[in-house]
């Protein structure tokens, strides 16, 4: 405000300013006829303005520079860590996918092993036979009811039901002109060691972004 005020005051008193100054102030105007008009718009007389005490401008520049450098460094660090995090995220997502697959096949193995058909087969392989007679012990009276007899090795169980048909050869597709001899022996194939992972094909496998912002390339015509 004070600056503006200082600029305004001379304009107010401009009428009393001498005409002489006009050429000095406006040396570029060649035509003297314009001088009286211009004379009214004189500038204020120059006077000393007491500036407030200030810090050394050099230190200010240094501080500003350092602030900018620091800010840029921070931005850089954040940016690096974010993008590094994204790479890690993508890597972890791929790892998760792999683990999901391994987990799935393990769960399937467990389910197959839990199936009663499999349990019966395993038990018979161990030489176990079903109990032909049963009895109960009443712990209060210490009485045995029923007529339990030791099982004999030749006790026949009920008929055995076939196990589930999973991971068995799948019939070739009917509508296929060149039906391949399809066979799946997936369960027999041992798991690959994870170290063998080749990075290039893995990218093809992960069309999903999985929440990350670094995209895996999409397969065309997939």
């Amino acid at each position, binding site marked *: 405000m004070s600056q503006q005020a200082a600029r305004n005051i001379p304009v107010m008193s401009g009428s009393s300013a001498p005409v002489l100054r006009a050429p000095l102030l406006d040396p570029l105007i060649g035509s003297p006829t314009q001088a009286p008009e211009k004379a009214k718009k004189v500038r204020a007389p120059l006077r000393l303005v007491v500036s407030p005490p200030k810090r050394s401008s050099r230190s200010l520049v240094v501080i500003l520079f350092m602030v900018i450098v620091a800010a840029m460094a921070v931005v850089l660090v954040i940016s690096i860590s974010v993008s590094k995090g994204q790479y890690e995220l993508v890597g972890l997502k791929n790892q998760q996918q792999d683990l999901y*697959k*391994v987990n*799935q*096949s393990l769960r*399937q193995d467990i*389910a197959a092993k*839990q*199936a*009663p*058909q499999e349990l*019966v087969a395993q038990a018979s392989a161990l030489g176990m036979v079903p109990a032909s*007679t*049963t*009895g*109960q012990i009443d712990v209060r009276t210490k009485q045995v*009811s*029923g*007529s339990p007899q030791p099982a004999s090795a030749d006790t026949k*169980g*009920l*008929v*055995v*039901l*076939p*196990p*589930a*048909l*999973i*991971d068995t050869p*799948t*019939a070739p597709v009917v509508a*296929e002109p*060149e039906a*391949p001899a*399809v*066979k*799946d*022996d*997936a*369960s027999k*194939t041992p798991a*690959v060691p994870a*170290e*063998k992972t*080749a990075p*290039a*094909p*893995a990218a*093809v*496998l992960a*069309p*999903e*972004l999985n*929440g990350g*912002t*670094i*995209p895996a390339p*999409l*397969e065309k*015509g997939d």
Partner: protein
Amino acid sequence: MAQKPTQSAHGATAQQLNKVGRTRMRIGFVLMMIVLLILAGKLILIQGLDVGNMAQAAEDQRTVVQKLPAVRGKIVDSKGHVLAESIIRYDITVAQNNLAEVKDFSRTEVDPKTGDKVKATYTVDEGLAQLAKVLDLNYADVKKNATGTANFNYIARDVSPLVEKQVAELGIPGIYPQAITKRVYPMGAVGGPLVGFLDADGNPLAGIEQTMNKQLTGVDGKRTFQAGKNGIIIPTAPVRTEPAVDGQTVTLTIDQDLQYYAQQAAQQQKEQYSADWASITVIEAKTGKVVALADSDSYDPNNVGASAVANIGSRTVSSVVEPGSTSKIMTAAALVQEGLATPMSQYLVPPTLNIGGQNFSDSFVHGTEKRTLAGIIADSMNTGTVMAGSKLSLEQYYNYMRKFGVGEKTGIPLPGESPGILANWQNWDGRQRYTVLFGQGVAQTPLQTTMIFQTIANNGVRLKPALIESFTHADGTVDQVAQAPGVEVVSPATAQAARDMLEGVVTMTDYKVVNVPGYRTGGKTGTSEAPADNGVGFDGYTSSFIGMAPMDDPRYVVGITVQRPKGSIYGVTQGYTFNQVMGQVLRSNDVPPSTTPAVKPAKFYE
């Protein structure tokens, strides 16, 4: 334009020159303004007003919507064993035209000795040989399928993710693994007819898969993002993800181990008697929960095609047979409920009974006997049952049968359930009006017959057979399926009287087969002539036994039905099978042995 300045240079004053220059400047200015205006107008048209929906078109071109498929829910048994689940499998496909373009390819491999990553180059044929090895296929087959001009062909179908990983690591150009979801049934034929199956396109065709399809099916999600022409996702563009909601897990009331045992027993009975089929049902008496529902020759949902078409489905709910003598307990219960008899009511039963012009005899020869109602039931006498039952009006008995659930679907959530065949009492012919009293001239599913005994076991309240315990949503919340309200058919006192008579069948008969050591049991045999499949006359028999235990407070009902056993019908018994199955059920569920003495209602009176 170029001449003007020279002209003016020759004969124009400075002022004229000035004027000319100013005019030109103005013209130039106006022209520039016009050009700018056109540009600005175009800009506003395109950017501001978007005439022609360019922005939308561009966004549409960039926008990629990726479907996030929802996983179909699992079907598990009451103890959480998986009966059906969806897993990821892969088809290994080839773009023959792409493969034909390359001679060799390279991939980075880890050197097993040094651990360094090295770049290895192979020819396509070497790659295909490696592929054949990984897939455990013949190299010639792989080569044949991979050679050609088509842009799509299968190399192998339905391989596990582990194999797919190996295939991907080979990095052969033109070989693409394709993820597919596959439904697997780890228990195979155990519970197969209950679980059902899907067709190749994932449409449910049978069992719980069909009836609970709505719950099992999830809601597909989608991810919308923007991608450049090269398929790379634009990182700064918004990515909208609507997550998929997986289907619900359906928990059945079935106990996998008992289901297996019951199926074994059913198969055993079928094979032992060379019967058409056998069915065993285990019901929890107080809740109506189906613990096991076993059919002989159950199909394996993993490979339905291997089973005969007639075996697809569950005969326990879809086949109707004449129940025979098991119906006598309905007659007795109706008589007691109506106050027309008690278990100790006395009947002078002749060797053969002639009533309403119809003759009835029994399966064993006897003279005129002084029988109690319990004695008539114990030895399953048709004559006595007709004598006692004829006190009921036809309408009365018909109504009791309806209340016991004959002639209507039980409502079990399985497709293809039959309501049975029960003609209206007004249409019963001269003989049928008596034969219905001992279970001929009426047809029921094995499940319906078992539910009649569940009614007796559950103090006269008939429940709806429950096959589903709960639904588990994708977010983990569990919806328990509420017990459907029952139908009170007879009073608890009547049910108790009926149970005493059923126990009399076990304790008072001369031919003591039924015996589960430690437990009081009760039940009723049934033998009926099976109507021929062509509808003319009869062909063979239906042999059944429905029983319950422990009689102190019945917990389980086991119903066994064997259709058309071969050989002499008098040698056929379901008693031993009942002992095995009921024994297994009681022991598996830690049911304490009976502590009260068995009921032995007198067969004769003095």
